[in-house]
């Protein structure tokens, strides 16, 4: 029951109360119905008794009219008799109808019917006797007590009927009273029990609901406080979000401008790339021409190297010849010196020979000096040739390297051409993408503007939420005070 809902508990309380009321009402209804039935039966018995009394009264009226006519002979006295005769028959039929549920009474009425016919016929015979025979025969007839006996029998038969009915009436009256007592008892007990049960149920429901509602209200109170805090934070967050949205909107505007600039730059890059591709193609042709020139230079350098090596060989041959010349000059010098020595030994005769020897020695000295110079020059030439050959070989290698470089340059230029083509396509794609991006950024800007508007609305609604949360907190406090004054 603790887990039952509010509606369930209240519904259960009302259901129990309604059930009790229904039981009480049903029992009361049944009792009243039984009482009504008992009263109806009692009334029915009274009607039967009234019909029997009426039957006897009509018989008495008929006998009274017969005796008044006998005494007076006046037909006016026969009026009760006439009306009673019809009434007796109708009353008997009425009694038959009223006692149709009782075979015993029906048999008694069946026995009563010939007696009534006999009495009416006796009265009619007496009246006829008076009308025809006069007073005397009529008086004897009366004095014969036939009429009185019939009347006594009728009274006895009616008395039995009445006793039977009286017995039924007493029985039915007792049952009616018993039913009334039972009804009173049930209504009283049911009412008191219902009231007590409803009170208990009310107390239980009130207690349960007050504790449950109190707990719920306390929850609502704490939740509303949390909601208030959350709404406060939400309001702050919404404000910060609104500020951030404004900043984002500004940034996106700047981004839009930048994107447009990028699109323009990409377009320019594409144009420059096309120009570069053209220049690369031109450079390609130039490099091909330069490569051919390099090959020609290479051939010329090879020729130069060959000539230089030949020149080196010739210089070497000159050196060999010069060695011979130098040796000759040295031998000449030795000979001239020895000739001088010999001339000096020859005395005066060798004086002119000494002069010649001296000139030969000088000549040999000069030749030796000249050969030294020539050797120096030859060495210089050979050194120069070697240097030139080395330089030429270096130049040849440089030409080869240059040729390779030109090949590389050609390959690089072709690669540049390919890359520039790729760059052009990429720049065009970048331009298109950037335009699409600019469109997308514009859409984002619109969306961000909408979001900013939504954020402002959220900020406003956050304020309202905060206000509502505050009111909810106050309301929950009031409600708790109402439900649990001691807790409030």
């Amino acid at each position, binding site marked *: 029951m603790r887990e039952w809902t509010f509606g369930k508990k209240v519904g259960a309380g009302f259901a129990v109360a309604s059930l009790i009321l229904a039981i009480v009402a049903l029992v009361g209804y049944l009792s009243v119905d039984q009482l009504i039935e008992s009263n109806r039966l009692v009334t029915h018995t009274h009607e039967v008794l009234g019909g029997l009394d009426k039957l006897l009264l009509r018989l008495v009226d008929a006998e009274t009219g017969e005796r008044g006519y006998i005494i007076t002979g006046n037909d006016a006295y026969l009026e009760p008799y006439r009306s009673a005769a019809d009434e007796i028959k109708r009353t008997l039929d009425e009694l038959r109808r009223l006692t149709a549920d009782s075979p015993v009474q029906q048999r008694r009425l069946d026995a009563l019917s010939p007696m009534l016919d006999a009495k009416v016929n006796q009265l009619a015979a007496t009246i006829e006797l008076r009308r025809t025979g006069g007073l005397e025969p009529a008086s004897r007839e009366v004095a014969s007590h036939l009429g009185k006996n019939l009347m006594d029998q009728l009274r006895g038969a009616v008395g039995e009927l009445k006793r039977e009915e009286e017995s039924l009436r007493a029985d039915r009256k007792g049952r009616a009273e018993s039913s009334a007592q039972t009804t009173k008892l049930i209504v009283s007990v049911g009412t008191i029990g219902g009231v007590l049960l409803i009170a208990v149920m009310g107390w239980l429901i009130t207690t349960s609901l007050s504790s449950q509602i109190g707990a719920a209200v306390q929850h609502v109170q704490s939740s509303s406080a949390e909601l208030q805090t959350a709404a406060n934070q939400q309001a702050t967050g919404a404000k910060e979000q609104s500020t951030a949205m404004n900043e984002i909107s500004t940034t996106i505007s700047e981004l839009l401008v930048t994107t447009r600039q990028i699109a323009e730059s990409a377009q320019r890059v594409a144009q420059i790339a096309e120009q570069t591709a053209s220049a690369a193609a031109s450079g390609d042709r130039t490099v091909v021409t330069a490569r051919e020139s390099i090959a020609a230079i290479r051939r010329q350098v090879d020729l130069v190297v060959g000539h230089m090596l030949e020149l080196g060989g010739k210089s070497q041959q000159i050196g060999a010849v010069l060695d011979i010349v130098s040796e000759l000059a040295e031998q000449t010098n*030795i000979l001239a*010196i*020895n000739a001088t*020595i010999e001339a000096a030994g020859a005395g005066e005769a060798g004086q*002119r020979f000494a002069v010649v020897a001296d*000139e*030969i020695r000088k000549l040999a*000295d000069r030749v030796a*000096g*000249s050969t030294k110079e020539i050797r120096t020059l030859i060495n210089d030439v050979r050194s120069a040739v070697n240097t030139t050959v080395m330089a030429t070989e270096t130049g040849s290698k440089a030409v080869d390297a240059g040729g390779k470089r030109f090949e590389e340059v050609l390959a690089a230029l072709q690669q540049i051409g390919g890359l520039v083509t790729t760059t052009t396509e990429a720049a065009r794609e970048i331009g298109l993408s950037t335009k699409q991006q600019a469109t997308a950024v514009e859409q984002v800007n619109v969306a961000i503007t909408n979001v900013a508007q939504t954020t402002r609305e959220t900020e406003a609604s956050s304020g309202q939420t905060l206000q509502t949360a505050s009111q909810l907190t106050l309301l929950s406090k009031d409600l708790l005070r109402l439900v649990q004054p001691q807790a409030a």
Partner: protein
Amino acid sequence: MALDAPTLARAFDRTFAEPQQNGAAPTDDFLDVRIGTDPYAIRLSDVAGLFADKVITRVPTPLPALAGTAGFRGAIRPVYDLAVLMGYAPTGSSRWLVVTAVEPVALLLSGFEGHLRLPRDVRDVVQTPRGVYPILHVPSVLDTIKRQLSQHTGQKER
């Protein structure tokens, strides 16, 4: 090139065309040589001949200065290393030899640089464009050889 062949030829021919100069200052001739590591001058009058690339045949000798023997104009002469005689380290391989005028002895030079013609008043040293250096006194060298030979002979006789 400082001088060409036609110039040399003309200079050579001119010496025969020019008259003999009798009034010129008297001069002495020297050989510009190297002994050991130092330059020296040898009077040409002390020398009987200058030779190069002679085959020196080594002979067994107790004299350190005696390098061997060589043939000069049909005669065999002993060859003495001047560097050893002058107190330098042995010359080793050298191609220059002089034969002295007064004795049949050949001297091994460390090097020969050229011929010098200097005024006759030069005594002990000569002055050349390459520097100042002493004049080798060949008789003293020959005396040294003789002294060493006599010492060796004396030792042998004892």
